[in-house]
């Protein structure tokens, strides 16, 4: 172990010499440093979240006031997308497909894995960098073109994809614009695969001496499980995307059955394919993907709660086991997205049972989070508020999954606004809320400055209220039988009574945007002019606070040695109420 320290120290020396030779491009653009790459991911994914959100704000106009011209912006769109400023069905479908794709693949996953994982994970295990820095850089530089290609599809011939983010064939094979989406997806999948290999190897191989697996912070565990999910779940989608690409470009018929008659014309493909095959392969990825969206935020919440209750969280091992259990189970539940798809009704019963089983570890994690509050000395600072908001909001999201996971009630609720409400409660008020908390929590680490608290409180309360205003009405609409993916809900009689709720949702969504402005200002202002903080402003125990903020290249001046578990707060006999992992005597 002494040898190791020498190595790291030597490595660090060579760094400081190399430092001066780096150009701006090497340092900030094509950087190999996990911290810069993490920040690149952070800024890019936050921008993509904003873009995806903007698409939704446009769509919300069409939902609240169907058939009326979109004010101001409507005139800027080309006439074929929005004749007279009224959003057309094609344009609405494009916005919907791209909203889903951007939010999931370009926003939340890169934020949770690429940004937080890249920046925080190596620090928390005491590593000088990721295991494969070049691959790390390649991962970002495949992600960005993939994202830009997706955005560019709006102006490319054929327009953006308009078959939903799920891209069910045969619609996706008939519709224009899908090929660019597929190429973009292959780039994003490649990026994720490179990232996940890197995370797994880093976590398993680059831990500081003394950092056993059961001493790793829960955030690191969540990233490890997430990376395994990405690694094993993405290739099936890649294969499925290749087959869809073949169908579109080489006119094969993997997903096209015989005798398709499209708008009165016999489709030319030879036929013999299975449309349901895509759905199976897509959801084989996309269900583990849900946990990819969810696990890193859960890890972040555990970090923040442990830090701000000043006590070890309840049931560390339960949480670790539950995360692994979720990871394993998530591969055998996918077909609960397909109960009414024409899939075998007998097989549905199998997926019903596995779906109910996977709720067990999720409930266990949520319970551990709540029980962690018991006996604590709770500090209500800005990150803690976001972490606490995660609990009831994710609770609502999880509970409303129950009637969707049950085959019988899913017959009614499938593809209604109830589904939209459910997964937005999980992903937006759950994952995104927790990750914004993570931004406030680790901002001092990234920039050595704190974000403004007053703006933080304003951002928190405004966001929380507006998010509920957007998503809660969807449950009522779903129960009234309103379908998703309609650009004009008023075309159906049964949607009319709940139409006013669309106005509530839309107004809340636009207010939600306004409440993000203080955050954007706060983020960039604090980056340069925020209040300077000490090295460990939250008095936290994990290793990322054992190095300067922001950490220098190579992170630790001396490879830390780990003496205890990650959350030893209020340790009996210690002088302070936190006992850092790397300090031997406290």
């Amino acid at each position, binding site marked *: 172990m002494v040898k190791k320290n020498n190595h790291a120290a030597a490595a660090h020396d060579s760094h400081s010499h190399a430092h001066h030779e780096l150009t701006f491009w090497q340092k900030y653009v094509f950087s190999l440093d996990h911290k810069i790459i993490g920040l690149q991911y952070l800024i890019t994914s936050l921008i993509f979240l904003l873009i995806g959100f903007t698409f939704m704000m446009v769509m919300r106009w069409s939902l609240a006031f169907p058939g009326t011209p979109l004010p101001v912006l409507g005139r800027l769109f080309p006439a074929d997308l929005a004749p007279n400023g009224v959003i057309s069905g094609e344009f609405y479908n494009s916005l919907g497909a791209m909203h889903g794709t951007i939010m999931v693949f370009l926003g939340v996953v890169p934020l949770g894995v690429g940004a937080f994982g890249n920046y925080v994970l190596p620090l928390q295990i005491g590593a000088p960098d990721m295991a494969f820095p070049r691959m790390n850089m390649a991962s970002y530089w495949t992600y960005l073109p993939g994202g830009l290609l997706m955005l560019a599809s709006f102006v490319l011939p054929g327009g953006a994809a308009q078959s939903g983010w799920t891209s069910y064939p045969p619609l996706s094979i008939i519709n224009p614009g899908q090929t660019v989406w597929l190429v973009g997806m292959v780039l994003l999948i490649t990026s994720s695969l490179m990232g996940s290999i890197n995370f797994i190897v880093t976590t398993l191989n680059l831990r500081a001496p003394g950092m056993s697996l059961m001493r790793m912070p829960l955030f690191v565990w969540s990233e490890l499980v997430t990376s395994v999910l990405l690694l094993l779940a993405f290739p099936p989608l890649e294969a499925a995307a290749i087959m869809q690409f073949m169908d579109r470009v080489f006119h094969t018929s993997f997903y096209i059955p015989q*005798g398709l008659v499209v708008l009165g014309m016999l489709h030319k493909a030879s036929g013999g394919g299975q449309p349901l*095959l895509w759905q199976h392969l897509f959801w084989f990825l996309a269900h583990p993907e849900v946990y990819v969206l969810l696990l890193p935020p859960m890890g972040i919440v555990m970090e923040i709660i442990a830090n701000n209750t000043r006590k070890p969280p309840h049931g560390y091992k339960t949480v670790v086991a539950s995360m692994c259990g979720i990871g*394993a189970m998530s591969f*055998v539940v996918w077909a609960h997205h397909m109960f009414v798809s024409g899939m*075998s*009704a007998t097989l549905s019963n*199998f997926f019903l049972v596995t779906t109910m089983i996977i709720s067990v570890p999720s409930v266990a994690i949520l319970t551990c989070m709540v029980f962690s509050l018991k006996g604590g000395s709770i500090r209500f600072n800005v990150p803690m508020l976001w972490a606490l908001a995660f609990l009831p909001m994710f609770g609502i999201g999880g509970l409303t999954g129950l009637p969707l996971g049950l085959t019988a009630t899913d017959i009614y609720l499938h593809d209604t606004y109830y589904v939209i409400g459910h997964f937005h409660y999980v992903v937006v008020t759950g994952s995104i809320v927790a990750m914004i908390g993570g931004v406030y929590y680790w901002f001092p680490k990234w920039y050595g400055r704190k974000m403004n608290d007053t703006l933080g409180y304003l951002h928190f309360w405004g966001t929380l209220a507006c998010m509920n205003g957007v998503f809660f009405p969807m449950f009522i609409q779903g129960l009234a039988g309103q379908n998703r993916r309609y650009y004009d809900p008023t075309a159906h009689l049964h949607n009319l009574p709940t139409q006013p709720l669309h106005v509530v949702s839309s107004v809340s969504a636009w207010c939600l945007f306004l409440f993000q402005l203080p955050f954007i200002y706060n983020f960039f202002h604090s980056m340069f002019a925020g209040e300077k903080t000490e090295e460990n402003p939250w008095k936290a125990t994990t290793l990322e606070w054992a190095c300067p903020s922001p950490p220098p290249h190579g992170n630790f001046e001396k490879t830390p040695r780990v003496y205890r578990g990650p959350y030893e707060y209020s340790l009996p006999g210690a002088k302070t109420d936190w006992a850092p992992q790397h300090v031997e005597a406290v």
Partner: protein
Amino acid sequence: MANEHPHRVAAAHGHPPPNVKLYIAIFGALIFLTILTVVVSWWHLPPAGAIAVALLIASFKASLVLAFFMHLKGEHKLIIAFLGIMLFTCIGFFLIPLDQHLLRDRTTHTEVKEEGGAPELPQAEPAKPQEAK
């Protein structure tokens, strides 16, 4: 293949020790099995039998390559464990064909030239065995 003697140093650095004689023997076995599987296919067995024999031989060949060329035999248990996790996730790959099999009565094979009329209602017979208690 616990042949540790020739290259203990290599093993210590995490590299598996090579064993040339063994590689040649495996090579012979692989060639033999390749020829065998083609010879069996000349008998034109019915699909079920042909699939069973061909997959059995292919799996055996693949395990030879895995165990000896890829040195999975005696490999670090972390790698074995990870491959175990991967195999677990492959369960799903058996469920998708199972679904296709269960749906065989619902799949319509349309003749593009001349459609054979509305297909017979498929569920009349299978509905009963599928009945849940």
